[in-house]
């Protein structure tokens, strides 16, 4: 049975359950003067939810486990005895057979795959039937059981409420669980890396050239300090030198000087900038800003000014972050009570004195929190540096020299063909983990600061 018809059948059952539950509830209400906790429609929903829920849960679990079951069934077939021992070849034959069986491909590279394909198809359809049967049975059982519970004393309304709550909880858990899964895999792969390269060599080594890794001492060319420095230099120094003053000043203008009508169009426009795809900023950086920066460098006498300079990437990244800083600063400034501003104005302070001496200091914790969030964003930003920064890791504070970043290196390490468990590719995971830990810490600090600040004015 196809997945679609199964779904239609289950929904059909649920609809019947809904109608039946409603009718039954309506029947016992008729002629009664009692007040019931639940309306017929609640009973209907209760039955319907219990018809749909159990098969859904079952199918979700089934989707995770059935491929293994199918493969086991195939391996039990005599034809499978010719398979090579577990390893790369065996896996590729099996996956080819699976593609053939599912009609996703028509030619096969391995002869054996063609023999195994029908076996695969048979096993697959057998398990599909079993699954459909169980799902329908569950749907029916759930519906029937709950239908028998519909009665005057049954609080279907609270039950429905509980199911809704569970649904919402699941929805929020899925995002969390997925993230935890990603982190777990990151930890796992990084762990494999650190078995090859000692952590201190990676974290404190100052030489990075993954193109030439000696088999004897892979750590010697995998010292990530130049990457950390480049990331910090571009994301936390150059970008912030651009983003903080402009973001703060635009927020001050918007909250203190702009008339409501001006604010009404400037604020959304600024926020729209935050929605520009980073790849657009990326080619702006690579094609427009980088050559200009190089020109500038050469003209002021820096002969080795690079066309992949830290300055170009940092400048554009800063521009990208301006709306973010501006909106965080805007929130913080707006949160400063108007009484504070009035108090200063009533002392005879001018607007700009009030802003400099009262409002900005009062909003400072919020602004600092916002800047930390912006930094954490900037150092995780990938597209701009992939397009505009250099691939060569140099440890330099010259903004016109080429510099690379952690994100840029992760991309370089994982694109290009390399075996999946060489020190080179595994290094990408170690870099990813480091970046993750740093941004996580930054976010925690920033959010605590912002939260403290909000509480101060409540």
């Amino acid at each position, binding site marked *: 049975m196809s997945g679609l018809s199964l779904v239609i059948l289950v929904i059909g059952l649920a609809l019947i359950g809904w109608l039946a539950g409603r009718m039954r509830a309506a029947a016992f209400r008729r002629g009664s003067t009692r007040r019931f906790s639940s309306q017929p429609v609640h009973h209907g929903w209760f039955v319907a939810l219990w018809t749909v829920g159990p098969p859904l849960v079952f199918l979700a679990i089934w989707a995770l486990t059935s491929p293994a079951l199918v493969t086991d069934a195939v391996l039990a077939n005599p034809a499978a005895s010719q398979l090579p021992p577990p390893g790369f070849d065996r896996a590729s034959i099996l996956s080819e057979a699976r593609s053939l069986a599912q009609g996703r491909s028509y030619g096969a590279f391995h002869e054996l795959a063609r023999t195994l394909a029908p076996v695969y198809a048979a096993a697959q359809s057998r398990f599909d039937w079993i699954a459909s049967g169980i799902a329908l049975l569950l749907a029916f059982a759930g519906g029937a059981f709950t239908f028998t519970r519909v009665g005057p004393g049954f609080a279907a309304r609270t039950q429905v409420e509980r199911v809704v709550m569970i649904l919402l909880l699941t929805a929020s858990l899925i995002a969390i669980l997925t993230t935890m899964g990603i982190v777990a895999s990151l930890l796992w792969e990084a762990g494999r890396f650190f078995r090859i390269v000692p952590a201190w060599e990676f974290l404190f080594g100052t030489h990075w050239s993954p193109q030439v890794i000696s088999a004897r001492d892979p750590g010697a060319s995998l010292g990530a300090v130049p990457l950390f420095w480049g990331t910090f230099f571009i994301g936390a120094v150059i970008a912030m030198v651009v983003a903080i003053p402009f973001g703060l000043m635009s927020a001050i203008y918007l909250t203190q000087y702009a008339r409501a009508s001006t604010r009404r169009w400037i604020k959304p426009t600024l926020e729209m900038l935050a929605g520009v795809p980073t790849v657009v900023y990326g080619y702006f950086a690579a094609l427009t800003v980088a050559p200009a920066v190089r020109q500038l460098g050469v003209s002021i006498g820096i002969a080795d000014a690079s066309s992949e300079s830290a300055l170009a990437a940092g400048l554009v990244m800063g521009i990208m972050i301006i709306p973010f800083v501006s909106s965080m600063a805007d929130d913080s400034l707006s949160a400063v009570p108007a009484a504070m501003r009035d*108090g200063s*104005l*009533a*002392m*005879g302070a001018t607007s700009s004195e009030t802003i400099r*001496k009262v409002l900005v*200091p*009062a909003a400072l914790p919020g602004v600092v929190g916002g800047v930390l969030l912006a930094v954490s964003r900037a150092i995780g930003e990938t597209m701009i540096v992939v397009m505009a920064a250099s691939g060569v890791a140099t440890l330099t504070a010259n903004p016109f020299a080429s510099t690379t970043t952690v994100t840029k290196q992760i991309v370089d390490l994982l694109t290009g063909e390399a075996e999946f468990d060489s020190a080179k590719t595994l290094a990408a995971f170690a870099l990813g983990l480091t970046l993750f830990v740093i941004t996580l810490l930054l976010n925690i600090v920033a959010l605590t600061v912002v939260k403290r600040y909000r509480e101060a004015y409540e």
Partner: protein
Amino acid sequence: MTTPKITARNVSVYYGATRAIDDVSIDVTQDEVVAFIGPSGCGKSTFLRTLNRMNDTVPSARVEGEIYLDGEDIYAPSMDVVQLRARVGMVFQKPNPFPKSIYENVAYGPRIHGLTHAKGELDDIVEGSLRRAGLWDEVKDRLTDSGTALSGGQQQRLCIARAIAVDPEVILMDEPCSALDPIATAKIEELIHELKGRYAIVIVTHNMQQAARVSQRTAFFHLGHLVEFGATSDIFTNPRAERTKDYITGRYG
């Protein structure tokens, strides 16, 4: 009678198209305390804020009529609002110390107006203002603590110290005790008694007894009109207008 410090002539205030104050004329002399009373929303704060042009900060507000400070039209184009507000200080309903140290709160005004040239001079002003505000003994050992860490009553006295640090001629107070307990209120009232004579004081209050205790003259506002203005003792014992009588006997408000 002495010449008035403040003279308001036929003042009307509009928020957009609605009129919040209608044709009010009043005068305040240098050595008296004037109380504004009246039901909520009658325009007391609005009128008070015209006296130091704080209504300029409300974009929709518009003021008609004339207001003179020592015979000088404060709404004249040549008037320097910054100077005006240094001469006419204000204390708000809710204590609003700046999130700075106690010392810096009081030093704020002298600093922005450049009143001092040496650090010692500033120290003297801060101490003198805190003393006159009756706060010095409570805070002299913690001048570097944040002003927001004080109790509500202390914060309000800090705001008064802040206002008198620039040595104004008039102090406007908008319900300065409404957020305070009776003891803190008594302290502020005592303080008003001490400040009287040195500054002309205008105080908005919802508390009839307070008006009777601290003021020499009282103005009763109703729906944007000045209904009655006269000696406090007359207003409370022998009001001329029916509406005043209803209000002070608690018929409404």
